Every structure is written in structure tokens, then in C-alpha cells.
């Protein structure tokens, strides 16, 4: 498989159209493009911002591993994953995943697989800043995310 994989870890926001165009323009063999955007929720108004910490170097390397695994497993034609770090406000983008393939199921599965592994095995941590000016502490890992990863039966 020689499908293009694009991975970036960046402070700035991303542009959905630009990223989809990069991955699909000039080719007519792609039938399905699935994008996943993960956004910062305000948690019913209590959250002022999330601060995203990451492990530079390993974050990129680990996301690349996950994307290449998805490309191989679902025969994707292309995959993109962009993860932001730093401070993000409610409504802001946190993460973008794009999977392209000939048929829709592979694109859905590929994007979903990448997200499940990003949640549990990409070195990012989220700290909450609350609307009252205090720090809400670090977001805990969720059992549900571990189970979501485990359903793929992989060892990563």
C-alpha cells in the first residue's frame, strides 16, 4: 500500500476544505471521503477552555503508526490526521481525521479506527480550565475509550 498519509500536530486551527482537497484533488479513483472533527464542548457552560499537552515527536510518530495501520487494514486510498495542542475554547476544533477509499464502509471504519486509537494511544492530555477561573484538573481516561479501542482486536 502506498496511500498518502498526512499527519500534523499543530497549535493553529485546520481547514476542512483545504485538507480534503489536499487528499482528494486530482484523483478520480476515490469514491468515499469520511471526515471526523472533534470539538471542545463547553460542558453546559462550565468550561472556559481545554489545554492540550502533548509529547512532541512521539505524538506525530504514534499518529503516523495508527494511520498506516488503518490504511493497511481497510485498504484506504489516503488518510489524514491533524491534532491540535495548546489552549482551545468551547466550539473550537481539537482533532481532524480523514479517510478516503473506493467504498463507503472502509472510509467509515478507517476514520473510526484512527479516532479510537488516537483517544487511547496518542500521547495527549487535556486539562480543564473552568469558567470561574479555577483549574478543573486533568481529564481522566475513559473505560469506554479503552473498550472502543479493544473492539478492533488489535494490539497497539
Amino acid at each position, binding site marked *: 500500500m502506498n496511500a498518502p498519509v498526512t499527519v500534523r500536530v499543530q497549535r493553529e486551527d485546520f481547514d476542512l476544505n483545504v485538507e480534503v482537497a489536499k487528499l482528494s484533488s486530482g484523483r478520480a479513483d476515490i469514491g468515499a471521503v469520511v471526515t471526523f472533527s472533534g470539538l471542545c464542548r463547553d460542558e453546559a457552560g462550565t468550561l472556559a477552555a481545554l489545554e492540550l499537552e502533548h509529547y512532541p515527536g512521539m505524538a506525530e510518530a504514534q499518529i503516523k503508526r495508527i494511520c498506516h495501520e488503518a490504511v493497511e487494514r481497510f485498504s484506504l486510498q489516503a488518510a489524514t490526521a491533524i491534532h491540535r495542542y495548546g489552549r482551545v475554547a468551547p466550539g473550537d476544533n481539537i482533532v481532524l481525521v480523514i479517510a478516503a477509499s473506493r467504498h463507503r464502509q472502509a472510509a467509515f471504519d478507517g476514520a473510526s479506527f484512527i479516532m479510537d486509537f488516537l483517544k487511547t494511544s496518542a500521547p495527549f*492530555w487535556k486539562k480543564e480550565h473552568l469558567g470561574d477561573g479555577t483549574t478543573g484538573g486533568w481529564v481522566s481516561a*475513559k473505560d469506554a*475509550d479503552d473498550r472502543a479501542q479493544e473492539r478492533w482486536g488489535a494490539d497497539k
Partner: protein
Amino acid sequence: MSTVNLVYFSWVRERIGRGEETLDVPANVVTVADLLTHLKTLGEEYETALEHQNVIRAAINQEHVDHREPIAGAREIALFPPMTGG
């Protein structure tokens, strides 16, 4: 004795009070688990950070490893809580 470069993230970093350091470790520190046990003898901040040893995740040279992994030859060892990306 050997020298290791350690990096910490999230609340492990906050509790230890620094993001990275270079430490000399005794020859009997063979695995990640040995390293964690050793660090906990270095002061209260390490004890607090690494108290629940089983939740601490480790990476050697930027790849996930489990606590039984030997650390010999590691350029960089990272310790951090469970990840919450995405």
C-alpha cells in the same frame, strides 16, 4: 550506574515539578518497573506522582512499552498518565 534522560507529562510532570531531567540510576534498575520503584525513593514529589504505579504509562525512545521492558540502552524514557487525546 547508568544515565537516563527522563521526560514527564500531564499530572506526572506537575507532581514531580519538572518536565525533564537526567538521572543516574543504579545497575540493579533493569526494567521500567524497577525504575519506577527507584524514583519513588528519591523524594516525596516522586512518591506522590508515582503512587498508583499501575496507572503510569511508559515510553522508551517514543514507543509505548509495558513495565517489564528493560531500559538498557534507552535514549529517552517518558512517564505519563493514561492518554486522553482526540
